């Protein structure tokens, strides 16, 4: 070995040379490993994607247990555990699985609708009577629910990549919704143009709020977490004020805006019986756009460099302040699109509860999606499915819809604490920390 070589031995490439040799050998060994080996290792090492899937799985198991053991029938059966243990366990199983089956049927696919479809006399009547639409209704609902989550999730993920924590998706959502709604009922324009104007208005409404946050940070150093939280309050109260005054629907005393014009509606994608609309396509396009921006353009290169190491970015000549403003402007616009998309796609009027919990769901979606565009798409679809399936689950199995929120919270909890998941499944720590990076950074 070269370690034992006498000092000053004339081996001119010397030890560093042999180091490269071993490195090259290692590399060729790596490429020779089979796919199965790589898969097994990546699961064992508990990298971020594995952790996320296990987090979802664990949350579903715990959610099922919670669901079963808060059910009076199950508790009654478990009271007689020693006389009829089989019945107790079966009852618990049925309750937990029943709720999940209903959740699945409400969000993805319901076999009953297919059965109904085949009972029709002919295919054309089936289509005409809406039986075919009923088959796809769960998926349509999932997409409808996922649309605002996806857009708002991107509004958190993009600033995250640039090292900022956007808590203000709510205020930006409201900003977009206000402008989008006003343009929807306040002016009248020809068909195609009106919808485009409203969508652009939604973007602008949110972007203005994002820009304020970025500008404050760039000029005064105000931390975006503080300013976005404060803007959330300001916008919520501004919305109430507007809905009680200038934007109030004539003849109403509650806080609700007029209905937007028909030309401002986002077009349905598959006929009027399915609620899925062009907003979903806009959201997917935005996800692609954010991906392209981050990984294929020079501003995106800057955003990511600033997110990982702002001082090195500064030394490399990047304008950190300008990037902060730009990122927050785009992020605000995305959240604003979520707002106007809800109005133009499904609600058609604005009330003071329209913004719901989108602002905070956006954070969980971005977290679950590891702050990456594709991850945000998948996370938004998952949460969209939860939201879409919850009403059917409640109707069919009498399970409270809140269990869905518990599931979401559990998933995020496990994703935010990868060591917990690794401990449960005895995984080794991942070499490249992905999840840790996202959650560990947080407000720092």
């Amino acid at each position, binding site marked *: 070995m070269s370690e034992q070589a006498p000092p000053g031995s004339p081996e*001119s490439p010397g030890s560093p040379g042999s180091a490269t040799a071993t490195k090259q050998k290692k590399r060729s060994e790596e490429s020779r490993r089979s796919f199965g080996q790589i898969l097994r290792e990546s699961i064992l090492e508990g990298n971020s994607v594995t952790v996320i899937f296990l987090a979802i799985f664990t949350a579903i198991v715990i959610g099922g247990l919670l669901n079963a053991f808060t059910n009076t029938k199950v508790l009654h059966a478990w009271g007689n555990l020693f006389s009829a243990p089989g019945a107790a366990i079966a009852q618990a199983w049925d309750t937990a699985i029943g709720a999940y089956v209903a959740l699945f049927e409400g969000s993805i696919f319901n076999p009953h609708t297919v059965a109904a479809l085949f009972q029709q006399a002919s295919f054309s009547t089936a289509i005409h009577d809406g039986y075919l639409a009923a088959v796809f209704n769960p998926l349509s609902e999932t997409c409808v629910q996922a649309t605002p989550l996806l857009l708002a999730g991107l509004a958190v993920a993009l600033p995250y990549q640039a090292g900022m924590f956007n808590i203000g998706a709510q205020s930006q959502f409201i900003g977009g919704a206000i402008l989008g709604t006003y343009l929807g009922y306040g002016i009248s324009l020809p068909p195609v143009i009106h919808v485009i104007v409203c969508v652009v208005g939604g973007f602008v409404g949110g972007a203005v709020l994002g820009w304020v946050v970025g500008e404050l940070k760039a000029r005064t150093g105000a931390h975006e977490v503080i300013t976005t939280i404060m803007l959330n309050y300001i916008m919520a109260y501004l919305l109430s004020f507007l809905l009680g005054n200038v934007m109030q629907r004539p003849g109403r005393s509650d806080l609700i805006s007029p209905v937007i014009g028909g030309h401002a509606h986002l077009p349905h994608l598959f006929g009027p019986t399915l609620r899925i609309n062009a907003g979903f396509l806009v959201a997917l396009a935005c996800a692609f756009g954010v991906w392209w921006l981050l990984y294929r353009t020079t501003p*995106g290169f800057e955003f990511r*460099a600033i997110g*990982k*190491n702002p001082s*090195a970015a500064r*030394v490399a*000549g990047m304008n950190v302040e300008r990037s902060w403003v730009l990122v927050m402007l785009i992020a605000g616009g995305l959240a604003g699109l979520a707002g106007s998309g809800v109005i133009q796609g499904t609600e058609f009027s604005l009330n003071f509860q329209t913004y719901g919990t989108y602002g905070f769901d956006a954070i969980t979606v971005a977290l679950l999606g590891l702050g990456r565009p594709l991850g945000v798409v998948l996370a938004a679809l998952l949460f969209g499915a939860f939201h879409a399936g919850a009403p059917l689950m409640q109707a069919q199995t009498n399970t409270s819809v809140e269990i869905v929120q518990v599931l979401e919270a559990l998933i995020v909890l496990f994703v935010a604490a990868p060591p917990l998941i690794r401990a449960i499944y005895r995984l080794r720590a991942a070499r490249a920390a992905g999840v840790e990076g996202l959650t560990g950074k947080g407000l720092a």
Partner: protein
Amino acid sequence: MELELKGITRRFGSLVANDRIDLSVSPGQVHALLGENGAGKTTLMNVLYGLLQPDEGEILLDGKKAQFTSPKNAIAAGIGMVHQHFTLVPVFTVAENVTLGMEETRPSGLLDRRKARRDVRELSRRYGLEVDPDALVENLPVGIQQRVEIIKALVRDASVLILDEPTAVLTPAETEDLFRIIRQLKEGGTSIVFISHKLKEVQAIADTITVLRRGAVVGNKPPSATEDELAAMMVGRNVQLKVSKDVARPGDVVLDVEDLTVADETGRVWVNEMSFQVRAGEILGLAGVQGNGQTELCEALLGLRPIASGHIRLDGRDLTHSTPRQRLHAGIAYIPEDRQDDGLVGAFSVADNMVLDSYDRPPFSSGLNLHLGAIASNAAERVQEFDVRTQSADAPVGTLSGGNQQKVILARELGREHKVLVASQPTRGLDVGSIEFVHRRIVRQRDHGVAVLIVSSELDEIYALADRIAVMYEGRITGFRPPSVPVEELGLLMAGAEIDAPDAAQPEAGTQPEAAQPEAGEKA
């Protein structure tokens, strides 16, 4: 106390950090442990200090087997350690720091501060470690803080004292002081383990030298061994310690700094009406103890810090109010002093880091579009040219060793078109092999007609590279000297003495070829 390590092996996963290491330290001896970064010196000492458990091997104290499961055992057995990074509480006094962890109380239960002070004073007297026991540690210079660390170990009756890279933070004068203290401790019978990668220091202070390379002992040498011999053992091949360079052929003034004043946000002036010029094809070495405004000067040169007054000109073009990007484009190449924080984005790939300041220009982009292909091929080329040891160009740069990280920065900065190279502490923390590489590249840039400004607190580096030396003290230049200046004179200048040197090179005179000695690496 006779300390013996036998066959110590310590593994981290598949990496063998210590491979069957034998070491014996006799009482009253200074035993130097010499090796590059990552050779396993610190791991070995952490094993000895009880911070790490060896996988194999044993520690013998006076022939008896000892086992240290924590530093507490090690301290009880008489082993003291002064870490590279001090473990002092800045807001406590010296006496409080010394007693921390072994506070003695009076019968009433109150801290016995008087005894602590007495202990400190007594030890100071015995070993010539002058320290005021009531001074707050945060107000003390680094050299004195180190003494406090040593006193801390001695108060706990250490008979073996481990010093981990003790001179890394010291000025030449402070290093001399430390050596005096070490000699005194040695006379008192204390054994010293002196860990270092600096050859000159090891030769100056050690009784025995053990050289480590890649976790294993490569041999023992007396201090009379030559530098070349030791370096070769350390690196595993012959190393050229002195950069061979020809006489500089300075051309026109490229970088012209005139009456530059730089202050920070609190109004403290770091650079005070400083003026100097760097000509094409010469290396100006800016020597000085850290913290005398070098960092601020470099940041001001690059536009990262506002300039209070004065001018910076590049080839006659005024850059005083330009943005960092404009200055980079104007032809400044910059090697920052803190490569982790300012030079690289650790999570980015090697390829991305190689275009960190040129991604916005062709061929790497056009309009908004990044050209990933161009970035990748550029990386492949540069990795080859600069011999960057990385698994692939897509590996995160943070996973590379310090030397290879520095090569990535060099590859990036020298790959751009540039007229001036500003390099701040370009070889800090690098091993001998990497230092050789970096120095050679810098000299090559000079020979290609680049004006080079080297800012370094390592006098060896200044002597090795500079064609002309300027010394910075408290934001001013205390003198320009030719590289033949004796080290004592530089030391005085670094301490702020403005000595008249009638025959010394003035800014203009220093650019004459005869001022640059071919044997620049030699200390006068």
